[in-house]
């Protein structure tokens, strides 16, 4: 399993490569990309040269679904993408189907590979088949799918030489479906103050009085309500929504042959990025070591046990 690391500064490339990054990805302000913090556009050509010199690949995220553009603006976007394609970007990460269509067929085909972003989440093999028509070479799976649920997608991809990529579960993992979430757009609601922890997903409110019953639709199941209210209150005050991604699912994905592990928090500082990539490298190393010496179930159990005590320094 290889590591795909984000970067937003030329200075980050070497230390990240030393920490264990096998591939790099970034985003630039002039092309619609999901998430915050970009590489200055003027540094992109140098980044391509530098990643090649390091013997690594570089992809560019153009994966914001909100790719609203007049024909003139779209012309500028497509022109810029074609220029970067000529310049040596190895892959473009797209989510918007119309952009995928624009660059996928016949003479319009880019030299670079096309990766399907997790912002266009694939939760089933039919969806994978739908997007296969755009000659995608990799599917970046959303974090809200279990390894068990992904089995058929992984089989589909394996038999069609489509690579698969997952997100690291410790440093990333929104509870809501990426690309289907409006929680970060306060245009529809009024903020009382600045967002807590920069995110509306993590409410972190004090327990008590947060949840109120609105409708009771089935009175004869009313006995279940206290338990449900308690569960929601816990989720909104402490842990958040249940996570499908954990050490066990990571190991299952690893053992199923998923080829890439992404670390994608572009807003992290350089030292944090390097430390996290080092952590991922060590985690993959552990999974490799355990898998080569034990049967799968035993290796998985040992991996989960190790990971439970891992990361003592914390992030």
């Amino acid at each position, binding site marked *: 399993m290889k590591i795909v690391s984000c970067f937003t500064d030329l200075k980050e490339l070497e230390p990240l490569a030393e920490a264990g990054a096998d591939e790099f990805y970034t985003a630039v302000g002039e092309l619609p990309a999901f998430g915050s913090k970009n590489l200055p556009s003027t540094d992109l050509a140098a980044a391509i040269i530098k990643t090649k010199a390091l013997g690594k690949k570089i992809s560019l995220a153009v994966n914001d679904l909100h790719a609203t553009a007049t024909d003139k603006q779209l012309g500028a976007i497509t022109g810029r993408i074609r220029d970067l394609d000529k310049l040596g970007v190895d892959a473009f990460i797209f989510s918007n189907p119309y952009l995928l269509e624009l660059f996928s067929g016949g003479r319009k085909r880019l030299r670079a590979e096309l990766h399907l972003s997790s912002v266009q989440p694939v939760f089933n*093999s*039919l969806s994978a088949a739908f997007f296969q028509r755009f000659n995608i070479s990799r599917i970046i799976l959303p974090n809200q799918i279990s390894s068990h649920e992904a089995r058929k997608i992984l089989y589909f991809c394996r038999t069609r030489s489509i690579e698969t990529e997952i997100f690291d579960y410790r440093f990333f993992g929104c509870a809501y479906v990426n690309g289907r979430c409006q*929680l970060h757009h306060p245009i529809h609601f009024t903020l*009382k103050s600045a967002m807590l922890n920069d995110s509306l997903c993590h409410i972190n409110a004090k327990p008590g009085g947060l949840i109120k019953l609105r409708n009771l639709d089935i009175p004869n199941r009313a006995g279940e309500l206290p338990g449900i209210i308690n569960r929601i209150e816990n989720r909104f005050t402490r842990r958040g929504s249940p*996570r499908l991604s954990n050490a066990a699912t990571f190991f299952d994905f690893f053992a199923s042959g998923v080829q890439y592990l992404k670390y994608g928090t572009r807003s992290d500082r350089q030292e944090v990025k390097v430390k996290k990539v080092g952590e991922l490298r060590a985690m993959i190393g552990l999974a490799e070591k355990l898998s080569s010496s034990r049967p799968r179930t035993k290796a998985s159990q040992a991996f989960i046990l190790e990971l439970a005590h891992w990361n003592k320094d914390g992030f």
Partner: protein
Amino acid sequence: MAIEKGIRLGTMTLADLKKSGGLEAAMRGFTRFYLGPEFCENLLDGSVCAEIAWLQGQGKKICLLTPLLSEKGARLLNSLFKRLLKLVKGGKIDPAGLEITVNDFGAIELAKRNRLPFKLNAGRLLRNNVFDDAVDGFKVHNGRVLEFFSKLGITRYELSTIGIFPKVNFASGRFYGFNRRTFKITLYYPYLDLTNTRTCLVGMRDVPPEGSALGVTCARECLISSFEITHPSIREKLLVRGNTIFLEFPDKFYASEKDLLTINVDRLVYAPFP
């Protein structure tokens, strides 16, 4: 041209609607019924086929809502599609009076493989592929995306009210490469689906660190009730039903139905509950 009026019952059965005393009013007030689970595959149920047939028998048009799909949901939806096809073949369902709303590209693929004779609509969970509604209106991204969906047979898009009369970029369609006559909008009110998760806030149990979840399981807790949340950073109340968080906009946001036609809304769908 009059605005078509629909009601979104979702997973509420006609029997439950009757029990609550609302069936007669719904039959009088609405010409189109929206049935089926829009946000969760765990609620996919073949019994909706009989309701579709019955409602069509009463002269009503139907739209079947379908959710985001995992492999499990895809299997359930496939068998639902096959049942519908049988009913069409047996003359029990008129394909012209049934639309399917899709919220997953896998459902589009499934509809194609089954050669469904029904019109497809792009559901609310797909809306950001076409529209930017994270502004004070609905902006079509570009004509190319409308063309893309049109090639899939989709020209109707489902959107939620945003509480105000939305600004649109349809009049400047020529700059964005589209003609406003090529698509229509179905507008749901009074709830805006703000965000959606697979791991249901209400129903799903926590996954222990040592456990690899098989999928999303629940006891259909969303059918029991909905909840209001006081978010410490947000003035408005958030509403939770199952795996989806909503905002409610109870105030009327348009002066006349004619105004809605100017923004391509030719169908209004009332949701009695989030």
